[in-house]
């Protein structure tokens, strides 16, 4: 459904005017003013080449439809942090080499630093902020609390999202399988043993809740 809407939007199903009207009506456009790292694009002409995408788009983040004015060259991690205020997603290397920016797209782990926000229209983005349901911690979050799994914890949100993705794929992993499934995240403190304890605990909690 969402995918179809996004394709419709890309096919020109919405006119620019209709889209802007919709944004005004919703009154919830995140603006570029909260943007910390202003690129030269802010001053670039707002004119759009024929057939090119519009800057005003809707992204679905943690179950909410967020309308946001996104420069075409902006990555998802930047939009989440600096436009939508979701600073749980960290930027470590910004080169798909550390995993701190890991988020879920339709339940599958991706590096938020290496995908354009414009490319995730029509897909469900889940960040660390979206894991808690009705005041109850996600099994992964509870496992982090139980095991004290991280030292400095800068990598924790990325690891937590990878653990959610891991449980989706393999709810009953061995320690070795968990290590494999979490191999796209780095911990600079080298706390991998405790992180794997956390992952195993998360799997246990998740099974007992199901």
């Amino acid at each position, binding site marked *: 459904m969402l995918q179809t809407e996004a*394709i419709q939007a890309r096919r020109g199903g919405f006119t620019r005017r209709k889209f802007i009207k919709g944004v005004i009506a919703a009154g919830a456009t995140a603006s570029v003013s909260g943007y910390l790292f202003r690129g030269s694009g802010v001053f670039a002409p707002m004119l759009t080449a024929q057939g090119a995408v519009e800057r005003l788009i809707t992204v679905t983040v943690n179950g909410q439809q967020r309308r946001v004015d996104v*420069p075409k060259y902006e990555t998802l991690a930047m939009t989440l942090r600096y436009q939508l205020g979701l600073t749980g997603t960290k930027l470590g290397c910004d080169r798909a*080499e550390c995993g701190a920016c890991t988020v879920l797209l339709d339940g599958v782990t991706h*590096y938020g630093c290496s995908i*354009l926000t414009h*490319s995730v229209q029509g897909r469900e983005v889940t960040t660390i902020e979206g894991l808690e349901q009705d005041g109850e911690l996600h099994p992964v979050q509870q496992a982090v609390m139980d095991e004290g799994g991280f030292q400095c914890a800068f990598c924790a949100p990325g690891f937590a999202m990878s653990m959610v993705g891991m449980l989706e794929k393999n709810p009953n992993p061995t320690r070795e399988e968990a290590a494999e499934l979490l*191999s796209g995240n780095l911990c600079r403190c080298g706390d991998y043993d405790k992180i794997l304890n956390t992952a195993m605990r998360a799997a246990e909690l998740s099974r007992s809740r199901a």
Partner: protein
Amino acid sequence: MAVMRDMIPPFELYQPTEVEDAVRLIRQHGDKGWVLAGGLDTFDWFKDRIKRPEAVIDLVGVEELRGISAGADGGLEIGAMTSLTDVAENADVMGRYPLLAEAAGLVATPQIRNQGTLGGNIVQDTRCWYYRSGWPCYRAGGNVCYAATSQSMNREHCIMGASRCVAVSPSDTAPALVALDAEMVVAGTSGERTFAAADFFIGPDIDIERMTVLKPGDLLARIVLPAPWEGARWYFEKIRDRKSWDFSLVSVASSLRVEGGMIQDARIVVNSVAPYPVRLRAVESAIRGRAPSEDTGQMAGEIAVEGARTLRHNDYKVALMRNLVKRSIRDAA
């Protein structure tokens, strides 16, 4: 770091939904355009401000380029935008072409496989860091190779196939596809053209600025796995510094057809030893009619490394290649 390198400089973004529109846009922008698939190769270039295209054609919305289906001649067709995870975990690929499933499953990390595409893995640019750091080398249009001097850090560079440039092909799926006699279907304005995988990758002696036959304006649309190598014996091994993330130092892919204990036909392909995946035709003909044994493997390994020319820091690749070729015959199952 004084210089801000992480904000991507502006570009115009196009998100076509049909292959024809994508091709038209790619043609229209020519060498000022950039085709975006999974983005794992792309964004490094953009963030480092070494490649600065005016227009980016994002293929995320082109449904036709995604998915795995039955091919016309009983083989399998894989859209270029299919994620590496989908290739590695697809029941048909795993059952019929396990060599490709294995290779795709060993690329980088889970996240990169979820996001990266088969097409992107095939056409990705080389990882030579002199080149990727923006040094004006031969491949970048300059007139020197920084990786082949007496002071260069060239542990990862090539031992064969060099021609001014000594960079290697980094792809894991490329050798597997060559070993399966896959075909690459390239879309253009004047219809589709098909290339055998072995001819798709080109060396610097043919064009030093490209790794494949694709020119600005071309689009790799899909990969066709023909029926013949289905169910053959196979072997794949990727040697790398870490068990995650890293590109291969040397990788090997083989397909063997064995009847009555003798090798009837074989494809042996090694990658990351040359600027393109190297199909070892001399080895293939030498092992035909022999048993896939330790002795045959030993002989094959010796033939494989004939003519290798090492740089200052990469002579270990000769021994690695010799051993991997041996294993690819002896241990194929």
